[in-house]
């Protein structure tokens, strides 16, 4: 049960090998072994969204993802997206719009918003509220987050539809 296997992750562009037990989650591996701490353990149950990371570009709960299942997957945390123009636009909008207070939910919130804008570059307010509804925030009342995501969407260059 406690036997560990080697898992190969492409994390923030770097290929790393980690050892994980069958029961170990992606969250514990990236936090305790790789010391990437932007993904937070808020509930360890998939209910709060603070542990959100991107797996092959999709927003997933790293507390519900078994590390061994992520073998050969591309994992992105917010630490690795600092140079991405969409993420930078979102970060700027969060900062100028006051879209965070304590900041504990913010990495997960930004990644969920990033995944939304990747799939839907011009979301409506309802789209934003629905897409982020799995990410909890206890500080802001959500209003400034919605405004920041909509503002970031407006600020992004309009993609040409093929």
């Amino acid at each position, binding site marked *: 049960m406690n036997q560990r296997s080697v898992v190969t992750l492409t994390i923030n562009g770097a290929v790393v090998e980690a050892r994980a037990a069958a029961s170990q989650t992606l969250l514990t591996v990236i936090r305790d072994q790789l010391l990437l701490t932007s993904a937070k353990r*808020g509930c360890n149950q998939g209910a*709060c969204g603070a542990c959100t990371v991107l797996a092959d570009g999709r927003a997933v709960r790293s507390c519900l993802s078994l590390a061994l299942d992520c073998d050969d997957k591309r994992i992105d945390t*917010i630490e690795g997206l600092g140079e991405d123009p969409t993420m930078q636009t979102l970060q700027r909008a969060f900062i100028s719009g006051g879209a965070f207070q304590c900041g504990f939910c913010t990495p997960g919130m930004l990644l969920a918003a990033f995944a939304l804008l990747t799939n839907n570059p011009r979301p409506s307010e309802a789209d934003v509220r629905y897409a982020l509804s799995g990410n909890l925030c206890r*500080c*802001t009342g959500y*209003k400034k987050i919605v405004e920041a995501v909509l503002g970031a969407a407006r600020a992004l260059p309009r993609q040409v539809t093929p």
Partner: protein
Amino acid sequence: MSKHGDFGIGKSAVQIEAQEKVSGAAQYIADLYRPNMLFGAVLQSPHAHARILNYDVSSALSMPGVRAIVTGDDLQEHWRIGAFIKDEHALAKGKVRYVGEAVAAVAAESEAKARAAAAAIEVRYEELPAVLSPETALASDAAVIHEKASEYIKVFDTGTSGNLCSRTSFREGNVDQGWRDSDLIFEARYETQPQAHVSLEPCGALAEMDANGRVSLWSANQSVFRVQANVCESLGMPMARLRCLTPRIGAGFGNKMEPHVQPIAVLLAMKAKRPVKLILSREQDFEMVRARHPFQIRFKTGVKRDGTLVAREVEVLVDGGAFADDSPGVLGYALLMSCGPYRIRHAYCHGRLAYTNKMRFGAFRGFGVPQVTFAGETQIDEIADALGLDPIEFRLKNLKREGDSWLGGQPIDSNGLAECLDRVRKASGWTGKRRLPNGENSRRALGVSCSAHISGLLSTGAIIRLLEDGTVLLNTGSVDIGQGSNTVLSQICAEALRIPLDRVSIASPDTDGSPYNWGTTASRVTYMTGTSVLRAAAEVEQKIKDHAAEILECAPADLELIPGGLVAVKGISHRNISFAAVSGRAHWAAGGPIIGSHSWVFDQKTIDPKRASVIGLPFPQIGGFVFNAIVADVEIDESTGKCRVNRAWSACDVGRAINPQMVEGQIEGAFVQGLGFALFEELVWNGAQIANPSLMDYKIPTFVEAPSELHAIIVESKDPRGPYGAKSVGEIGINGVAAAITNAVNTALDVRLRRLPLTPQRVLTVILERELTAEAARAQ
């Protein structure tokens, strides 16, 4: 001469920590790692009330990777803590008093190993009868939860007896005369539920002992100084042997003010002689920290036919849980605020606090005021309706005004509540008709409420150092719990010294180097610490001028600070010298480094003994009143009973908004936390056990439940004593939310709901009852 606001205040400066928070670099307690660090885990009590007969830790200790185990046997009997009544040990000692209480703890090489070992500790208990409600607790034959309560150290006359933890009463005027002077008397009972704080970051701590036996402690906290005092008292340690520091805090709503697992982490680190990090799971955070008190409330109000309030009696019965914690304060403060912001000549407000075998209840944003405001403000609506008065007009007629006194006799220095009411009335389009057009299957109405809070309490300080290059280091000891106080205090400092905000840095709170600060709690940091910052800056300014006067060969009084870190001869701005030059001289030639400092304690008396008589605990010195008015537009689905807040307007009189965007953030966040309290949040006990200690089963508002239109309105009735006129905003915005929402539901459905939360089931029940009554009436 430039006006206030040219440098720091009144501008929405971005949070100083913005870049680290959006990049994922911000480090919270769980993100800290130390070389050679162990992980902690806690064993919790399975019983609500039981004697601990013995522990067997041998098999747990022999498990791989286990380095230390601590139990109540590691504590001395007199090492008890508590802000008001010293009734609690760091770990259960002798008895357990609620399901989930920390009984023992383990330090091991991994968190999984620590948890497995904690589960392997064997404890023999002798079960005792559990007392699970305040009524049963106060019955004469109830099992006593604290047999030695009479020996406990208490900071006021508590009246403790049996399971009565404490009681408090206020009397002003003559309430019996008040009933005689009233034309109509309204009386009803109300009930509010336990609410969980759910800061997104669970509580945790990291402790490390150095080779000399001195301990450093980082933790999720709202005050490094309260952590220091509590840990030392609970472990019999001299305070000089413990240094408390803070990482970033993943929000605190009262849950992180008094201690949680800090003493346990320190005990483990001292025993293992290695650093130990102990982070609670979400379930443990629900079961072991604290929650908002459930209140049972009776409100009786007398009024004249013309709408003048005359008399009020308030009686509350509060479940305090197993330990007093902040409960006596919550009871006293709730009573102090229970007559609301109204002129009521005759008042008698009294209440009791009971020990029960449940998790302790404690400080939570609003500190008892959301509970009594729910009762008081829904009753005010009921009275207005009975008198045929518009609820806003009725409130305006009875408002306290500037120059009036609060219950107890304390003067109110500034009061912008009438403007708050006016602003929400206009913004919401409120007319005499509060019912909005019904939907196909829904009813809809507006509801209003008013409330008040305070800004000043206990003691605080600030130190400002002018560094050699003329930049500034501000050190206050105030923990920024996410709300942005580091930014606001830096703005005040920049404004006072007329320098750009980026020339001010703020030190992280550290009991080794920061001036004392009681805590980031009671809505007090802007008002209390901001005042210290302003006065410390004034001392720095004077010292700068003293140096500059010698350099420029003039009198200090002839000098003024001019923008950009310069001091100049008044009116001759080119005759100036830089802060850098002044500070260089002070460091290397004359006078010594420039340091300004200030500390104070809020000393305005709560009670004027000529006006009011009090038994128990009124906070003796508390004040700096702030005010709020809310209008909420609520829609009720008649087939499901589900309530939805479509729009809301919340106007807060904050004195002066140092950072308007952060003020809005507080108002919006408080509204949505209050919406959860009003509509669905409730910790539920199944027998002695919390039935929903998880975010799967305990729902907080999401993006979907939060109103799509939420308008924060800032009213600035400047306080003569606050920094630049500022008062507070941290708590005021939550107090009246449940009342405003309930008033809307009551109006829409023509009912009187008196119990929170307004779950679909409860609302549907009253809809069905109303329909049955109407049917019966038709049948007759």
